[in-house]
């Protein structure tokens, strides 16, 4: 049964994008996430093991994923909020004069629901997902993955758990940061260029964004974190053949994770629209 499905996926791939195997990847990523989640669950039942073997690596990865990504996320979010404000503000004003007082409402909602989670996820995919795939890929081709297994460290768990957990924690944090910075970017442009008073802007933000919007954005970013991390892990672990292989692993991890994030984003948006 499983094999049938796999063959179907491989077949689909040939039509889509030869060489990238995105559909097959999605299937394998699904299996790998099951395995990782099981391992994490098992680990939670062994707090001592968790503390001794995983605490430090998780913290290290959190710095790598989270702290080091802050400048990129801040810059991107700020400018996105600014562009959003100027584009929608000018358009609204040209259609219905005075309607740009809703600008705070629109900018913050678009950010919290969509642009914050998606842009942050895509940035982190490019920055961290690629690094994870390259790092694990080069460990694979230099037999370090084999060596881990001979030294009682199951590689998927030893390398996967810290990265996965760090990503699940840090991506939502980065997303909130992007939401906030983006809204501030919108505010800057609104008050300096569109001549909307700060009170009007922030009132719009307050009346526009509900807690459900924030929650849906965070749920999205959790999904995206899992997707980008597991694509990177999967591609890293299945690296074959020298430096070219590492390059291929990196590219396909980023491309496939990005496409999947956008597809999943649509379905999540549709689901949240029900509430």
């Amino acid at each position, binding site marked *: 049964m499983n094999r049938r499905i796999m063959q179907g996926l491989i077949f689909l791939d040939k039509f889509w994008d030869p060489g990238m195997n995105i559909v097959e990847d999605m299937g394998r990523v699904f299996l790998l996430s099951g395995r990782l989640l099981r391992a994490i669950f098992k680990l939670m039942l062994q707090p001592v093991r968790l503390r001794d073997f995983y605490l430090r690596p998780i913290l290290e990865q959190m710095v790598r994923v989270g702290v080091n990504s802050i400048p990129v996320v801040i810059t991107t979010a700020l400018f996105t909020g600014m562009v959003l404000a100027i584009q929608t503000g000018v358009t609204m004003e040209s259609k219905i004069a005075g309607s740009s007082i809703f600008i705070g409402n629109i900018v913050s909602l678009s950010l919290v629901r969509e642009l914050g989670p998606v842009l942050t996820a895509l940035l982190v995919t490019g920055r961290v997902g690629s690094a994870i795939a390259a790092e694990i890929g080069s460990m694979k081709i*230099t037999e370090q993955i084999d*060596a881990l297994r001979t030294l009682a460290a199951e590689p998927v768990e030893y390398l996967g758990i810290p990265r996965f957990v760090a990503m699940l924690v840090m991506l939502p944090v980065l997303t909130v940061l992007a939401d906030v910075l983006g809204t501030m970017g919108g505010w800057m442009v609104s008050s300096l260029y569109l001549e909307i008073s700060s009170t009007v802007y922030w009132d719009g933000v307050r009346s526009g964004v509900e807690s459900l919007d924030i929650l849906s954005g965070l749920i999205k970013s959790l999904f995206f974190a899992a997707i980008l991390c597991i694509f990177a892990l999967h591609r890293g672990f299945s690296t074959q053949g020298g430096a070219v292989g590492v390059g291929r692993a990196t590219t396909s991890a980023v491309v496939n994770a990005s496409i999947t994030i956008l597809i999943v984003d649509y379905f999540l948006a549709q689901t949240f629209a029900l509430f």
Partner: protein
Amino acid sequence: MIRIRNLHKRFGSKAVLKGLDLEIQPGETMVIIGRSGEGKSVLLKCILNLIEPDRGEIWFDQENILTLKESGRAQFRQRCGMLFQGGALFDSLTIEENVGFGLRRMKNYTEERIRRIVREKLALVGLKDIEHLYPAELSGGMKKRVALARAIAMDPEIILYDEPTTGVDPIMADAINELINEMNRKLPVSSIAVTHDMVSAYKIADRIALLHQGRIVEVGTPAQIKRTRNPLVHQFITGSAHGPISLI
């Protein structure tokens, strides 16, 4: 005792191992020789279950490890030490952390004790005061020796050496040969060593096996191998370009 029966492994259309049989007695050092690309490294990885063979049996202590579940295989692996052909040092960890990696994960030793063991094992391979360096800062031969120290750090019952003397100078090579002999004298270790270096092979081997075209074609003590009538073996040990083994 390790007993390998009818082992098969192919990669795509390329059959590498084609029904390989081999027995290693307890306490014995078996040296495997064979041309480059014959599948010696693949054989070692099959024994450790790092590569899943297509067919065959690998018996250890009355158990066919290929029928064990992953947890059982992992347990078996923990009783083995492996020196990888390329060293396979973890390049994000220091030398100290590399050599102590298995100890930290598997033994409940104090940090002090682990550091002492690491120092001892490094001294055995002729290295000292490099604990804080990273693998990228070492020479090729030094990496090989650190990898050897890591392989023996846990005092394993079975040690697999993939070309232990390749890339080290002749004096150090001889020291490594002695170290391998020493390992077997202290404890009843079974070892399998892959090598192209016949000097080393004669020095460390209890028996030598020639791997050719996916099978073991001859096994014997160094003395028997030297006197062999088998033209394949003769060509190999004399290192001649002329004989039954063609170059391509």
